[in-house]
């Protein structure tokens, strides 16, 4: 999908107008951003928005996130285990130390 984020009042207003008149391309509206379906019309509208408002418009192309394809098992398991922790006050660093779960710093270093 296309993620369109606006960074000015005027761009936001134009985006709102686009969303109103082109309901069919909008997958989701999120305040001053919107997700468009991946069609040429959506790209056309996003590009027009950028032509008009320049740097106040950011366009990104997103892909569906499949944690089983993109994320190592260790990270997935750490997330599940931490959310299942017994004491809600335990910080992750304390939770992970002395276990096989990766530390936040390790994960920070490694790209997906």
């Amino acid at each position, binding site marked *: 999908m296309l993620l369109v984020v606006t960074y000015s009042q005027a761009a936001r207003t134009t985006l709102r107008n686009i969303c109103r008149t082109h309901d069919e391309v909008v*997958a*989701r509206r999120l305040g001053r951003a919107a997700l468009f379906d991946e069609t040429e019309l959506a790209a056309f509208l996003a590009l027009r928005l950028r032509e008009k408002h320049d740097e106040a418009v950011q366009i990104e192309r997103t892909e*569906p996130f*499949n*944690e*089983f*394809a993109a994320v190592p098992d260790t990270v997935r398991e750490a997330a599940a285990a931490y959310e299942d922790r017994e004491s809600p006050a335990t910080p992750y660093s304390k939770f992970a130390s002395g276990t096989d779960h990766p530390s936040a710093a390790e994960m920070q270093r490694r790209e997906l």
Partner: protein
Amino acid sequence: MRLRLPDGTVREGPAIDLADGPFDVGAAEVVAAIRADDGDDGDDATGALRIDCPQPGPGHDRLGRIPVSKSTPSRGWLLAAVGRSRGLRSPVADDLARLEAKLAERRDRAAEESEADERERADTSAAALREARRRVAAAGEDESRLRERVATLRGRVNAHRDAGDDEATETAQSELVAVATELSEVETERVAAEQRLSALERAARTERDSREARLKLEDAVKNRRREARAYFAAELGDEFEAALRSLASVSATATPSGGSPDEPSDLASDPVACALAAVRLADLSAPVVVSCGRFSDAEAAANWLDASVVRCRPNGG
């Protein structure tokens, strides 16, 4: 009002005091008796508390009992009930009614749908989606592993053929055929898994759409309610302040010795005092159940509140 106690004793008048016993009647019981439909079902059998009084009108739901149901009622919440009891309508009342009806309709429909076709509908739970993603990923992994293997075998077949080793060529060839068949099966599996995932994602998206619509509606209702509360707070604020001041002087005379008299500013942060002030402003025909210690007796409470009063001990008491 006419109140009949469980033992058949009858009390009458605009102010009835149950606080000093002999009967153990809790506030909740009295409130229930006031709100009970005055039908024939409450025949004259003894054993139940019965109260003959006017039907509770608007506002009694919140102000029919002190302390009120909320532990820290806001001024707007109280004054909105006062406004309703007096038949006042906020400028957003129509809007609010419309939005609330819409929200209720949406809830009914959602309940119906979830009951009707629980089996037909795609399972869009997080667990189902996670399982679908896992299958896509697993099938994709199998597929690339087999694809690599096919490439390796193809190379081997060519190498053996170039070397003129017919037997080895044939062996490699038959292995290649087997692996290629497996590959095409896994491919089919992967495509099916992808289709299932995207179908689920579409369904999940529809679900999110309706969730978003509901959230918007709930926000709108909350905003209208806030506006209504602000309206009543502005309309009735002066009267409310005056009632609090009057309560301060009543309390001062009611507690001659002991603690210092209440300042109106202290009373404004006392939930019971605020509720009392609201009841004084409200137009309630049904009795109010008072189980707080601010008045010496039911009559004093009824006089100040300008409402009929049943005074009793705090619940269960």
